[in-house]
């Protein structure tokens, strides 16, 4: 989708705040036309020594300035809302694509979360800056047309000569266009590298400390920030060069007016009132080329940002970055808590995997996997490290995003087209090897939606974590800190298990659940799952799991061995 259409979509997300804000800005820019005219008349009166007239004009000038400021006061408040609305739209589309379980909205998952935050922070800023610049340009056009009309009627020769520096600005920006884009992209890469590394260092602060690696890590960071200084300076100098060109346009314009009117000035035909009018307008006239220059630069930044963001959304389509969405975030908006949209429960009779192959770019993966299972059975997958157990689970759940996946998965003998969308609660629940929690309450982390107390109680019992939670100061309302770090490793694992069990899924897929649990807790957990009659696929190396298993799949080097 072309840049202009993308920007238009963003601007029309909340049309009311956009257009009210726009109108205020345009109004704001029409007052200087009146002010310049009043000043010109004022200097005429001064040179005629008509003091009374000067005072009248001064009062009128004061009035006009007051109105100008009132219009921008109102406009700025509305525009702030429009600004946050636009940024939130883009952010929400990125986040929704990253959070969607399959379906048309789901995008490719990002690598480093720390780096991805720059898309939500800097790239959305670039998008809004461009729309903002366009509003400035349209207001500048209104002023330029009105002022051009006034100047042209006063002295058409002097007015025409002003076109020269304006065209100069436009041409200079055109030539610098491609360079602006390249420098900006380099700068963003360097910035993302810095914040990615800072994020990594902060996330692994303890590891860095206990390995005595603070100094070497910081010297790596020094390399990164030095690189960023270089790219930032290049970017800024070019940006400033474009601006200097447009700001200089006002002074050069005045110089040209003086040159062209030298004769008229000497003869007194071009009087001081005219000079005042030209001077007053020139300050504002340079606004348009300056904004045009800036917008041209921002247009480049906008498309760089879009290029980076589209890889987060479905089908890598930039149109999906700006898709319309209802976002009740204005001060008086009501925000009802939405009921999560989940697929219909389809009772599981049989589950089958046919010829499933998932291969990563590096060549690692699983090949020709075939197995099936019935309701209420327990399937154990085992195999040495790196044999592809986790890849197999991800592939069958539709979560192997960066792999080339072939083959099919059947639910009650029906082929599943969008596995990621179907294999979520209440049909299926998955517990990764290292489960991730978020800084929220225990209840929110488990329910991931409105909390049903009875279901929550049952899930906690099943996951053998009831006693731990009951011992906490606020019970299930206890907040567990960033990434759940206030819990112990075992508690995190069991809270995540409760999360997988709360919707009584038809099928439970567990990636090495027992690894973080002690012997006694583990025993409790297995009996609970068996007693609840759950259908389970689990990765395990334990004999206790093998003994209970209805079938054992042994993976070796990405293939099932008998």
């Amino acid at each position, binding site marked *: 989708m072309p840049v202009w259409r993308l920007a238009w979509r963003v601007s029309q997300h909340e049309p009311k705040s956009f257009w009210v804000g726009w109108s205020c800005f345009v109004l704001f820019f029409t007052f200087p036309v009146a002010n310049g005219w009043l000043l010109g008349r004022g200097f005429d009166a001064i040179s005629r020594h008509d003091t009374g007239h000067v005072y009248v004009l001064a009062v009128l000038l004061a009035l006009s300035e007051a109105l100008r400021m009132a219009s921008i006061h109102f406009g700025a408040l509305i525009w702030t809302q429009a600004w946050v609305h636009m940024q939130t739209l883009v952010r929400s589309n990125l986040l929704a694509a990253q959070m969607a379980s399959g379906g048309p909205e789901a995008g490719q998952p990002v690598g480093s979360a720390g780096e991805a935050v720059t898309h939500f922070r800097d790239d959305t800023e670039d998008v809004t800056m461009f729309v903002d610049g366009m509003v400035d340009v349209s207001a500048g056009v209104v002023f330029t047309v009105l002022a051009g009309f006034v100047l042209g009627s006063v002295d058409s020769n002097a007015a025409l000569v002003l076109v020269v520096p304006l065209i100069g600005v436009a041409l200079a920006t055109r030539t610098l266009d491609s360079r602006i884009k390249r420098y900006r992209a380099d700068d963003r890469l360097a910035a993302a590298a810095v914040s990615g590394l800072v994020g990594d260092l902060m996330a692994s602060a303890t590891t860095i400390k206990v390995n005595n690696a603070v100094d070497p890590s910081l010297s790596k*960071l020094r390399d990164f*920030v030095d690189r960023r200084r270089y790219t930032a300076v290049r970017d800024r100098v070019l940006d400033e060069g474009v601006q*200097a060109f447009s700001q200089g346009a006002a002074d050069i314009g005045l110089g040209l007016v003086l040159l062209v009117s030298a004769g008229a000035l000497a003869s007194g035909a071009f009087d001081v009132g005219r000079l005042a009018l030209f001077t007053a307008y020139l300050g504002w006239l340079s606004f348009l080329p300056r904004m045009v220059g800036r917008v041209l630069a921002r247009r480049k930044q906008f498309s760089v940002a879009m290029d980076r963001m589209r890889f987060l959304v479905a089908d890598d389509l930039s149109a999906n970055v700006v898709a319309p969405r209802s976002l009740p975030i204005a001060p008086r908006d009501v925000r009802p808590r939405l009921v999560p949209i989940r697929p219909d429960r389809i009772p599981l009779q049989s589950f089958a995997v046919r010829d499933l192959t998932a291969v990563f770019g590096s060549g690692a993966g699983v090949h020709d996997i075939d197995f099936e299972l019935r309701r209420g059975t327990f399937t154990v997958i085992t195999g040495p490290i790196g044999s592809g157990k986790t890849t197999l689970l991800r592939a069958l759940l539709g*979560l192997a995003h960066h792999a080339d996946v072939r083959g099919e998965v059947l639910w009650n003998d029906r082929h599943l087209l969008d596995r990621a969308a179907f294999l979520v609660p209440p049909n299926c629940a998955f517990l990764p090897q290292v489960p991730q929690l978020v*800084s929220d309450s225990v209840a929110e982390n488990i329910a991931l939606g409105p909390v049903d107390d009875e279901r929550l109680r049952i899930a906690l019992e099943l996951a053998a974590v009831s006693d731990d939670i009951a011992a906490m100061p606020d019970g299930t309302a206890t907040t567990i*800190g960033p990434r759940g770090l206030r819990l112990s490793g075992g508690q995190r694992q069991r809270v995540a298990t409760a999360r997988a069990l709360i919707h009584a899924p038809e099928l439970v897929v567990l990636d090495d659940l027992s690894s973080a649990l002690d*012997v006694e807790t583990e025993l409790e957990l297995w009996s609970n799952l068996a007693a609840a009659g759950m259908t389970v696929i689990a990765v395990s190396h334990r004999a206790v799991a093998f003994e209970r298993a209805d079938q054992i799949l042994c993976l070796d080097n990405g293939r099932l061995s008998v």
Partner: protein
Amino acid sequence: MAPKPSGAQTSRFRALMALLRPDLLRWVGLGALLTVSSALSLGGPLVVRHIVDLATDGTTAARITGLAVIFLVIAVTTQFLSVVVAWFATITAWRTTNQIRLDMARHVLGLDHEFHRRHTPGELIQRVDGDVTSVSDFLGRVVPKAVGAAVLVFGMLVVLAFVDWRLAIGMAVYVVLAAWVVVRSRHRAVGESSDEMGSYARLYGGIEERLTAAEDLRANGAGTHAMWRFVEDSADTMHSALRRERAFLRMWWGVQGAVATGSVLTLAVSGLLVARNSITVGTAFLLFQYVLLLARPLEDVVHQLETVQKANGAMVRVIDLLAVRATIIDLGAVAPGPGALSVRFEHVSFDYGDSEPVLIDIDLDIGAGRSVGIVGRTGSGKTTLSRLLLRLVDSTDGTLALGGVPITDIALADVRRRVALIPQEVELVAGSVRDNVTLFDPVPTDEAVRNALRLAGLETLVAGGIDRPLGSGGAGLSAGEAQLLALARVWLRDPDLVVLDEATARVDPLTESRIEAGVRELMSGRTTVIIAHRLSTLRHVDEIVVVDHGRVVEHGDRSVLSELTNGRFRHLLELALDMDPADADPVLP
């Protein structure tokens, strides 16, 4: 926001000056450059004044043409200098703030484990990178413009004093009043700006956390829930942005009002003075141009005031963060003797600042070179023991000694050099395999890194080349492989005390048996503390400690405890044998 006591302002200013000091010469050079460029921009209006006065008295077109050319030359030079100033300002600002980034990263890395438990990495990125970028924008963009404006005003007063001293005084009074209004309203806006940055830090922190947990959330159909939280956080940013904008508008009124008043006054005063023949029309025009000249930097500053607000808020947070002190204070200077370290806990108690004790009155003696297994239920305090040994936390009560020296008397760098930890959860960084083993240390040779990887059982990574990139968060490594990589880190460092905290928890039996020999080799000549709930891991240790509810309930030689009737360890062994023969102990009679 309540006005801050002026002491806080002064200390903030002092802190800023301290940050600028290392690059002071460059900043002075920048000041000189700004002076030249501002002085030059005062010349243009003087040329126009001359033209107006000549035109009023009657002159030739040639003279005016000559003056117009001079005017043009000045205009072009001024713009050229502005680019040079921007170049020099940006390079200097980044030099300075890059140093602040590094200082802050070092400071935050030095803070306690408890601090990192309370703050998300996303929030810390915002502090160490985002906030410092705001300061950098302030130094590189706003400060040069503000200094340029100050030089401009000073030069303007000098020029006017030559024309008519009364004009200079009038202008001085006007500028002082305008500056007073701007500075007054600026201070009021700092609190709101800080709130806004805070609400954005929460928004981005939440987003970062959800992206990290993306697979969990996707697989559990939690999209709606994640979006609900996001909308709540966004509504918060809207609220704080509006409050900040209101505060911003107050000072905008101040500046714009000053400029408007300036041009109205110029008009009225000029009318009066010219009518009395006190000044020429050209001088009136000069006044008018100078007011316009003042408007430009003032408006620039208005545009940049947002950056000022941001930077001021950021500065507050940077200084606040730098003021957070680590409770682990590195005052030690005694080095324990070389070789394996003995460990002695004397009446050690620990709690995390709440009323619930984690460890109670621990007394434990581990001889140098011995290997000890620590067992106990989840939450019994085992992991806290490992944190004490690495001095990630200090005991609330009692003494912990390594090699006979209290751990608080040993230099922290020495502790970290001689004690190694293989934790429950291994953190990987975006970088090569080598980077992940050495944690960016350039000293170890490639061969040493390969060797460490082999010893840890990661032959496959060596075969793939150690300069191959590994993704952040361990993309491209299974959890078991990540655990092995942490083992390789220890091999590379050759410590005297090794603490393994569930180190082999995520490794399958086959791989485990492969590395078990390696771990046994690691034990030789070192003291080893192995925390485990999988008893098979403890087959080769000399002693066993059983921990329950923060107390040591059993300690002795493994061979003795495994045969002790009614012993806690023996009970655990029997339980494991019942449940899972894989955990059983082959040496059990």
